[in-house]
């Protein structure tokens, strides 16, 4: 008689705290799920509205094709051919990007280390950056010929500026006390940069590298608009001139995918190499 009465309150006392967290996690899961699904849902809704709008108002396909027509149209062209065009663009974007990184970071180190150098070179860099890239591109192509070189140079020109400016700002944002600590230890300039300034600038450098990813794709496409016989930018020019708008849209979709992948790659590299440089929530 005694044992059931003692066990009953005990079990009921245990039950609520067990049930409540379960309820809480379920609620949390729905919130988390909604968080993840919401952007996808918004994107799908946009596609449906687009598709329905085109069909409902009978928009001519050569003006604005519905998503289905874009997908069907893309299949006119073989996968190998798409891959070839995409690779041509990726290659130029990557080469321009790497050139920008290899040149910009040492340049930023030079600018941050000497006021005189900074005063001399900075205006020049701003002038170069102020030239509208679309206006300069044809000139560069004429000057450098019709190889990969002018395309890489154009991509470089649009990509390097944010990396130089942001990296320089990062190198100069090192806490003054640490530089004094370095000097009080009579450490070399080399160690000041490799052990203090550059690591401290990493959050800045990674921001610049992320911005530069999308810019490099823009640069590659602009270069292809001017002179190319391959690539997604060329594909857009070519198909619009033949009113194959669905091919242009397909090219555009692939370009967006390339940009996003490139950006995500940098996010991943930052997480991998310097997790401390990210806010706690993003690690």
């Amino acid at each position: 008689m005694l044992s059931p009465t003692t066990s009953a309150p005990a079990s009921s006392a245990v039950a609520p705290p067990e049930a409540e967290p379960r309820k809480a996690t379920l609620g949390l899961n729905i919130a988390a799920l909604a968080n993840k699904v919401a952007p996808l849902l918004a994107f799908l809704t946009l596609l449906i509205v687009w598709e329905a709008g085109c069909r409902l108002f009978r928009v001519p396909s050569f003006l604005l094709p519905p998503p289905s027509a874009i997908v069907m149209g893309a299949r006119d062209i073989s996968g190998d051919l798409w891959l070839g065009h995409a690779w041509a663009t990726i290659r130029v974007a990557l080469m321009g990007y790497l050139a920008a990184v290899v040149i910009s970071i040492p340049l930023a180190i030079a600018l941050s280390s000497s006021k005189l150098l900074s005063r001399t070179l900075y205006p020049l860099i701003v002038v170069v950056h102020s030239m509208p890239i679309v206006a300069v591109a044809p000139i560069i192509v004429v000057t450098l010929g019709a190889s990969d070189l002018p395309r890489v140079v154009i991509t470089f020109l649009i990509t390097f500026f944010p990396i130089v400016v942001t990296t320089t700002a990062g190198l100069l944002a090192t806490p003054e006390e640490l530089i004094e600590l370095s000097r009080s230890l009579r450490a070399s300039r080399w160690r000041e940069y490799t052990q203090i300034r550059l690591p401290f600038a990493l959050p800045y450098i990674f921001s610049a590298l992320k911005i530069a990813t999308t810019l490099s794709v823009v640069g590659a496409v602009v270069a292809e608009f001017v002179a190319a016989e391959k690539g997604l930018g060329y594909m857009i020019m070519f198909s619009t001139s033949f009113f194959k708008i669905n091919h242009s849209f397909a090219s555009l979709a692939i370009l967006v995918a390339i940009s996003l992948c490139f950006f995500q790659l940098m996010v991943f590299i930052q997480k991998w190499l310097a997790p401390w440089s990210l806010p706690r929530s993003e690690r």
Partner: protein
Amino acid sequence: MDEPVIRFRNVVQDFTRDDGGRVRALDNLSFDIGRHEFVAVLGPSGCGKSTLLRLLAGLVFPTGGSVEIFGMKVTEPRDEIGIVFQRPTLLPWYNVLDNVTFPMRHKYGRVTEAEKTRARELLDLVELGAFAGAGIDQLSGGMQQRVAIARALLLDPDILLMDEPFSALDALTRDEMSFELMRIWAEKPKTVLFITHSIPEAVLLADRIIVMTPRPGAVREVLDVRVPRPRSLASLSDPQFNALANHIRASLFSRRAA
């Protein structure tokens, strides 16, 4: 008195402003600090207190007069000095232990096992032995400043320079850190120059207090603190403590009024 460890002789320090004008930061400053003496420098903001510290560290050089350590003129940064700044300025990509050994890595490019052992002992000394492997962002402000103290002690300096080291901390942590510093100083006696703008902090910690005038900074008064050691919470209610604190406060106010 023995040969002083630190000697300022008629030090004058001018700075060139951005607009080309010259500003006198320190004017005819002279004082000595003896071995293992704890000296606090107290003065209004902008009176050149921090310049004193940078002169000793060999980071700036006087316009006139001389700064000597062990009887030798300071012409470059020297190994006998450890510095603790107002902010902990630790390196976020290293854990606590690697931050303590950083001066070694930065000066010589590598850290030996012996130094790591020494760094662990120093972390025990500042009561952070359990946090050797922790990341910097896991520590509170007071804990970070204790790591900075351990870092300053790594190369076993004879002289410890502290530039308002507790001023960025909250009031409670600040008091705790003062007692902590006294305990560390008792275990590892050093010649300490402690810059502060807190009167109770200076009276609680120091053997002598150098009170400075507003810019251009000069020595206004040098006061001996006769509150007996070891000092504790009880020292705060010692009549000498209050008398001295009031004296300094009055002297600061009279200067404001003048």
